[in-house]
C-alpha cells in the first residue's frame, strides 16, 4: 500500500451558525484517484476549500504529506504541491491563455517550457489559442485551461471542484478522458462531482457525502453497484 498523501480527520466547517461539514474523515494515498460525490450543498466544496486553506475549519485536522496544514494560508499550501481547479473554472479572463498557465506556476522559479508543452499536448486547442485572452474561450476550453493551469504547479495532489459543471455532455467526456490520463501519468487526484456516473468510472476509491457527513465509501466499482448509490445518484432503481 502506497503512502498516505492527504488525511482529513474529523473535519467540521461552520459558516455563522450553519454547520456545512459535520465531521468528515477521509484519506487519499499517493497515486490514487479519489472522488467525493454528493448532492448540492452536501459539503463537498466546503471540504475542498478548507483543504486549500481558503476556509478555516471549526474543528479537525488536515495532514498533507505528513505535515499538519490545518491553519496554513493558501500560499503555503500551494507551495507544498496542492493545486486546485476551482468550481466554475475561475480562469483569469484578462490574461492570455499562456499567462493563465504561467500564473499556475507562480511559485516555481525553474523553466516552464516543458510543462507548457505538456499541457498543450493534453489540450491542443489551448495551444491554438495561446495568445487569446482567457475570457474569450468557450466554457469547455476554459475548463481545460483551469485544469492546465493547475497542472503547471506540478501538483502532488490535484483537487478538482466539479469540473463537469455547466458543460455539454461531449465536453464532459473529453474532460474526464483527460482526468484519466492525468491520473495514469501518476498525479494524485481528488475529484468532487455531482456527475456520479462519470466520477465513479475514473475513481479508484470514492466517498459519498450527505448533509456534511460521509455515509458510504468503497472502490469506484463497488459504489457503481451499490443499490443506494444507484438510486440516489445514478438515477436508476434496477
Amino acid at each position, binding site marked *: 500500500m502506497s503512502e498516505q498523501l492527504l488525511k482529513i480527520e474529523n473535519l467540521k466547517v461552520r459558516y455563522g451558525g450553519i454547520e456545512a461539514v459535520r465531521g468528515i474523515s477521509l484519506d487519499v494515498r499517493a497515486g490514487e484517484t479519489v472522488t467525493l460525490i454528493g448532492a448540492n450543498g452536501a459539503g463537498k466544496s466546503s471540504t475542498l476549500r478548507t483543504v486549500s486553506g481558503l476556509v478555516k475549519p471549526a474543528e479537525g485536522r488536515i495532514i498533507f504529506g505528513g505535515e499538519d496544514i490545518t491553519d496554513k494560508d493558501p500560499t503555503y499550501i500551494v507551495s507544498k504541491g496542492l493545486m486546485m481547479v476551482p468550481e466554475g473554472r475561475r480562469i483569469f*479572463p*484578462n490574461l492570455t491563455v499562456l499567462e493563465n498557465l504561467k*500564473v499556475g506556476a*507562480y511559485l516555481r522559479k525553474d523553466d516552464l517550457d516543458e510543462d507548457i508543452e505538456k499541457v498543450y499536448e493534453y489540450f491542443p486547442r489551448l495551444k491554438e489559442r495561446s495568445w487569446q485572452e482567457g475570457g474569450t474561450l468557450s466554457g469547455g476550453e476554459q475548463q481545460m485551461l483551469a485544469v492546465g493551469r493547475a497542472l503547471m504547479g506540478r501538483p502532488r495532489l490535484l483537487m478538482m471542484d466539479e469540473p463537469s459543471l455547466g458543460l455539454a455532455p461531449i465536453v464532459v467526456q473529453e474532460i474526464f478522458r483527460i482526468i484519466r490520463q492525468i491520473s495514469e501519468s501518476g498525479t494524485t487526484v481528488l475529484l468532487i462531482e455531482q456527475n456520479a456516473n462519470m466520477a465513479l468510472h475514473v475513481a479508484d476509491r470514492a466517498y459519498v457525502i450527505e448533509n456534511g457527513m460521509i455515509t458510504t465509501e468503497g472502490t469506484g466499482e463497488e459504489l457503481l453497484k451499490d443499490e443506494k448509490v444507484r438510486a440516489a445518484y445514478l438515477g436508476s432503481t434496477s
Partner: protein
Amino acid sequence: MEYVISVLLSGISVGGQYALIAIGYTLVYGILRLINFAHGDVFMVAGLMGIYFTATMPYSVSIPLVIIITVVLGFVIERAAYKPLRNAPRMSVMISAIGVSYLLQNTATYITGGQPMTYPVIPFLAGTVNVAGTHTKWVVIITPFLVLALVVALNQLINHTKIGMAMRAVSKDFETSRLMGIKINSVISATFIIGSGLAAVGSVLFFTNYPAITPTAGAMPGLKAFVAAVFGGIGSIPGAVIGAFLIGICETIIKGLPSSWDVSVFSDAFTFALLIVILVFKPQGLFGEAATDKV
C-alpha cells in the same frame, strides 16, 4: 500665436502632472475597488518633504529621498489603515481613507504652523527656455517626456513581468489568485508603492510651477487627478493618462481665455461639469470596462 502655444504647452504640462497622480488612483482602484482619498495628501506631503529636504541637502540626494520616503508612506498607510479592513465592507475602507487624508493634512498644519511654504527653485526645472518664441520653464518641456517614459515603463512592468501578471490576476479575482500561490498583500503593497512613487515625482514637477504649499494643497490636484481617472475609465492606466492630459489642457485653455470674458474663475467648475457630462453619456469612462462587480 505665441500665446496659444504657451497655453497649450502649459496645459500639456499640467495634464502630465495630473496623470502621475491619476495613475495612483486608478491602480489602487483596479485592485482594491477603493478610492484612495488620501492619495492627494500623500502628494502634498511629498511636496512639503521637497521643501524641507532641499533646504539641507543637495538636489541629487534630496529628490530621490523625497521619492523613497513617499513610497514608504504609501506602503505604511496601506498596511496600517486599509489592510486591517480587508474583509470589511468597501465603505469602511473608504472612510478610513478619508481619515488618513485628514491625518496627513492636520500633521502638515502642525509641522508648518499652517503657513504657506515656498517651494524651492530647482535650477534644471525652474530655469527658463525659449520655445517657438515663448519663454517657458524647463519643467513644462520636461514633464510630458518624463510622464511618457514613466507610463511606458509602467506598461512594461504590468504587461511583461511576473509581478505585473500577478497584479492583473489579483485585479480580477482575489480568491483564485491565492489558490495560485500569489500573496495578495504583497501585490496590493506593490500598487501603493508604484502609485506613491509616481505621485512624488508629480509633486516635484507640479510644485515647481506653484509658489506655495499649504496643508490642503493636495486636495485640488488630487481631486482633478481623480476626475481624470474616472473620465478615462477608472482602473485603466491609459484612460487615466489620456483623461489627465485632456483635463489639464481644457483647464489651461479656460484659464487662458481673454480676461474681458471673465470665465477663468470657472475653470474648476468646468472640470467637474465635464466629468458629469462624461458620466451621463459614458458611465464607464473613455476606456473603462462595462460595470461588472467583483465576484
